[in-house]
């Protein structure tokens, strides 16, 4: 009777000890991993910080302007190229919806030589 009780408690104590041991090592390992991740996060944040500085260095307006002038066939927007929404005339009623809807129904975009005449004058030939 007494032996069985003692054995029960001893087994329980040993099991609790082993459990604690395993748990402790598991926690230590997780803490190591966490510290590692934190270190990596910090390193990444620092790298992002440096990259941000580099990004703004590369985005200096005078550099963009030189690059834009040499690589793009675009010009700065002039005030006559801008218009207000209110200035665009309202579509006349006599154009039927089915006719207007037709180009949209076809999935393919209009060919390059079908650019609306309004924009054609701003196109620059190479």
């Amino acid at each position, binding site marked *: 009777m007494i032996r069985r009780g003692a054995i029960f408690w001893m087994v329980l104590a040993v099991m609790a000890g082993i459990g604690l041991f395993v748990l402790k090592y598991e926690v230590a390992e997780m803490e190591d991993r*966490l510290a590692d991740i*934190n270190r990596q*996060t*910090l390193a990444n*944040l*620092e790298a*992002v*910080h*440096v990259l*941000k*500085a*580099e*990004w*703004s*260095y590369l*985005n*200096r*307006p*005078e550099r963009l*302007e030189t690059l834009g002038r040499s690589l793009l066939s675009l010009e*700065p*927007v*002039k*005030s*006559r*190229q*801008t*218009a*207000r929404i209110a200035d665009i005339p309202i579509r006349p009623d006599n154009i039927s919806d089915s006719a207007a809807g037709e180009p949209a129904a076809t999935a393919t975009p209009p060919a390059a030589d079908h650019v609306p005449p309004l924009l054609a004058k701003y196109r620059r030939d190479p």
Partner: protein
Amino acid sequence: MIGRHPLLLRRSSLEQPVPPAVETGRSRLLIAGAMFAAAFAVIAGRLVDVTLFADGNEPRFAQSASDTGHHTDRADIVDRNGVLLATSLKTASLYADARIVLDAEEAARKLAAVLSDLEVAAVRRKLMSDRPFIWIKRHLTPRQQNAVNRLGIPGLEFQQEERRVYPAGPLAAHVLGHTDIDNRGLAGIERSFDAALGSKGTPLRLSIDLRVQHAMHAELAMAVEKFQAIGGAGIVMDVDSGEVLAQVSLPTFDPNNPMKIGKEARFNRTTLGVYEMGSTFKIFNTAMALDTGRITLKSGYDAAKPIRIARFVIRDFHAKRRWLSVPEIFMYSSNIGSVKMALDVGPVAQREFMGRIGMLKPSPIELPEVGAPLIPQRWREINAMTISFGHGISVSPMQLVSGVTAMVNGGIRRKPTLLRQPDGIRPRGTRVVSADTSEKIRRLMRLVVENGTGKNAAAEGMLVGGKTGTAEKVVGRRYKTKALMSSFIGAFPMTAPRYVVFAMLDEPTGTKDTFGYATGGWVAAPVVGKVIARIGPMLGVKPVDAEADNVRSRMAIDIVTEKNGRRQLASF
């Protein structure tokens, strides 16, 4: 009794009569047992409390994990759109513990071979000094650090430091200022917000728009080169909030290299320099006279003859030699007419007006480099006369721009600022002229660009208005005729001004293109026109058709060309 079970013993004792001594012992045992039980219960309770229930003071696990953010010792500075203007990067600095260094001669030679800008003799002296801490070189690049590490010299150590970096370089140098090697602000915003930048982690957001800053910088630099000027200044200010969108002073410097800043480049012409502004002051003079109600746009003065007072003669540069109406005086920039206008108002009222629009006190802008205006000690009639056309009083360009914003925005003066203001909220200001006067000034400024001395400032669709200014520079105690301060101050669009743009050139020389002229209308007005053409679409200013009927009628001025005589409706 030995070997018998205690329970059996107890049972047997219950059966027999109990002696008093045993009774006492048993009750004592019971008390002791109860006490032990209570103690164990307390310990058990505490154990449960500590292990199972969280304590308020305990650090939360989740919190400690997220607390490892990235910090720099000094906060970033960004422009109004969040573009990085100044930041701190981690670098390694090399120092030596001279007591540990074995062979100073060899170490110095090796170091100088790796770090090219070090001198062998200087390094050797440092390494032989026997001091436990001595800087060898601050802020090494990672490559240099690696090279020094590979030398493997004992006694050389690295200290992690931060270095201030300005990605935009010299572009906003006078606004930002710079720091010393220990990251203490020495000039500009870096100095005026030194404490805040050092303690707060959040970036400091300026009102500067880097794109506008670049447009002003590029156009001004081009003009300085073209007219061989010794310097230039340019400002763009929001008329409703007082925010400075661009502030350029030429020549400029690279804040990344604070050791190599020359004295001339360090000087901030926009806030520290005070200059006699010349005819741009006629904006204030005319507004003052109109606001008193003493004159209207139909009044006029006889500008046929130069004015002689004391040993001075006041003449007109674009002389018409006849009676001139107020719009004509403004349009042709007549000194004689302006003097008579100021005399009508009187020196006392003029002084009071100049004080109201902030010409008598240093600009309240958030920079340490702010110049105090030079004003006459006794404000006599002769002072009133010269101040009417911008001589005998020296103010900084920032003061002038701030004053002109109040003239065109409906008459409210607000504090000029370099910090981004919240959208949609107009800071409180003080009324300095009536809305009606402001409206008239807008028409007059538009007239100058449409038909007067400022035609070169025109920008298509932006409805620019403005005023030219050309002042002779004071050298010693005399005016130097050949050395000019040529400026132009403009605003756009004149129907409802949103921005004031100012450009000034210091000692420009006329070219063939300008027929040898180096006046404000020829050298500074084109800069303002080009800047406005560039920044207008960028800032979302809707183009205005200057020929449209409603715009024409809002800008029209009734110009009288003869005293009591015929009128000519402005049809331009």
